[in-house]
């Protein structure tokens, strides 16, 4: 009998746990999911909740009945520590958890495991920027945040209808943020909502970002095959903003948020301020803060985790300059180098370095996007690790049999630029591979036939289709396994 414990029930964790539960004989093996949340959230559609086009209920569902149907043991709790060698009183490796479920709040438990998958996702580190956690801005990182954002947006639109001018500031709230795509989608949906309300002339819409150029997206930018050209994502993104009359502040580290005002430092050393009436700023991500201990109780957190709290896996973490970065630095098996039965997927694994070129202001403040590893890559990692663990349990494989390396996988990103079955638009982008490989793909660093981008109604239909397909899949409804990750 093997017990597989999955910490986290986001895209990567849910993918891993549900496939493992489907593949393994439940009479012999047990899959346990530990997550502090009671609901699953299709995060990409939070954008539409944030402008009032969807409700929270349309993007979330209760996890308990789904896990009951799948035969997964569900513990609504947060993981606190990992004990990969057991302890004086427990020979098996285990994690300690602290319940968050109503009626059991604060109760602790030790959960032993044979295999552990860390899929905790990020801690939304609002505290990294002074004032970012003080309620002056909104976010769309969770469904509840998005509901609040929509309410605040409606208030601004009402003011504009009464003749007031309003400034909208959307983007990243720190110099080390990732997830520019979420802000990118949100600003276009806000713009469309304002346009539909007939008050665009009262609105100034500004993008603020830690990207050194528009369209970096945390991937060092990319080149699309478009109109007979290998067109830079910089031109593509700038065109989208310019067409809608929106301006941008780039290379910016937001270092302070106050009521209706941010202070920021730019890559050229400028210190400036920007006032706003409505701001949606994405926080930086950090690991969730799990600690680790050896058998005697000694702290081995730094053996398992990088300083930013993300888990070390089979990546090359040797510090080296940008010019020496290679695709082979990136992990393939997503396996802990120290404990072969521990894996990390999605945002939870520690990247060897960022993808964009490291930059800093003359004052030494690092200002660059951190690597995106959400959505499609997360799900692929979850399935690859689940496949490896299945083969290790069932076939006795001694090494992971499947890989999910960001240098060997592509990503599809459909960024909504406005909702509506016949009036909506979205940018459909594909990139292959995610990590540029200038040896394999001289020139742009990516397969130009696999790296494309276009804007239109069809992409919006794809975005809407993905919303329904992935919620269907996550609910394990008939045919869920044939919907690809």
């Amino acid at each position, binding site marked *: 009998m093997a017990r597989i414990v999955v910490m986290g029930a986001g895209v990567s964790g849910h993918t891993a746990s549900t496939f493992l539960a489907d593949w393994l004989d439940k009479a012999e093996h047990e899959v346990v999911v530990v997550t502090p949340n009671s609901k699953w959230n299709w995060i990409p559609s939070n954008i539409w909740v944030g402008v009032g086009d969807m409700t929270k209920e349309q993007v979330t569902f209760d996890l308990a009945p789904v896990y009951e149907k799948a035969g997964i043991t569900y513990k609504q709790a947060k993981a606190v520590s990992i004990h990969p060698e057991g302890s004086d009183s427990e020979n098996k490796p285990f994690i300690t958890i602290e319940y968050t479920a109503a009626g059991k709040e604060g109760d602790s438990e030790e959960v032993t495991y044979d295999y552990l998958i860390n899929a905790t996702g990020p801690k939304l580190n609002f505290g990294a920027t002074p004032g970012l956690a003080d309620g002056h801005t909104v976010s769309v990182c969770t469904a509840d945040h998005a509901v609040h954002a929509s309410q605040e947006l409606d208030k601004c639109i009402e003011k504009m209808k009464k003749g007031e001018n309003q400034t909208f500031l959307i983007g990243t709230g720190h110099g080390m943020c990732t997830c520019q795509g979420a802000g990118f989608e949100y600003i276009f949906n806000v713009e469309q909502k304002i346009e539909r309300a007939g008050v665009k002339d009262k609105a100034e819409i500004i993008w603020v970002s830690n990207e050194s150029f528009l369209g970096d997206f945390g991937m060092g930018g990319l080149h699309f095959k478009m109109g007979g050209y290998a067109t830079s994502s910089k*031109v593509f993104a*700038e*065109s989208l*903003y*310019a*067409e809608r*009359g929106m*301006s*941008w502040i780039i290379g910016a580290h937001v270092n302070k948020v106050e009521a209706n005002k941010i202070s920021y430092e730019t890559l050229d050393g400028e210190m400036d301020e920007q006032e706003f009436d409505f701001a949606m700023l994405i926080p930086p991500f950090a690991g969730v803060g799990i600690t680790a201990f050896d058998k005697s109780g000694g702290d081995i957190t730094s053996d398992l985790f990088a300083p930013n709290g993300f888990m070390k896996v089979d990546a090359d973490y040797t510090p080296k300059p940008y010019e020496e970065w290679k695709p082979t630095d990136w992990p393939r098996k997503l396996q802990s180098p120290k404990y072969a039965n521990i894996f990390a997927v999605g945002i939870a694994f520690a990247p060897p370095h960022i993808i964009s070129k490291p930059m800093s202001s003359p004052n030494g403040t690092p200002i660059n996007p951190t690597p995106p590893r959400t959505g*499609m890559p997360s799900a*692929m990692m979850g*399935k*690859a690790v689940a496949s490896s663990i299945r083969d290790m349990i069932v076939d006795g494989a001694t090494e992971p049999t*499947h*890989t*999910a*390396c960001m240098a*060997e*996988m*592509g*990503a*599809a990103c459909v960024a909504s630029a406005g909702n509506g079955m*016949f*009036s909506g*638009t979205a940018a*459909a982008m*594909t990139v*292959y591979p995610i990590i540029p490989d200038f040896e394999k793909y001289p020139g742009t660093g990516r397969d130009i036939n*696999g790296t*494309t981008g*276009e*804007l*239109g*109604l*069809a*992409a919006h*239909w*794809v975005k809407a289709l993905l919303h329904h397909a992935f919620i269907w899949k996550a609910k394990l409804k008939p045919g869920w396994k044939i919907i*690809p*990750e």
Partner: protein
Amino acid sequence: MPDHKNSKHVQHIEPYSPQFGTMMPLGTQKFFRTCVLWQIVRFVAINIKMTILILKSHH
């Protein structure tokens, strides 16, 4: 007074502003973005592209 048929598709762009340095869609491009027949074709094309990408990415 604008005297070009495409002027209505491009708002005033301040010369030498950041917005001045990019491309702007004109009427034909905008039309095809929401032309249902053309977008049905693109819907199929995008799905094929994404399927190929997914097949190449699983190892």
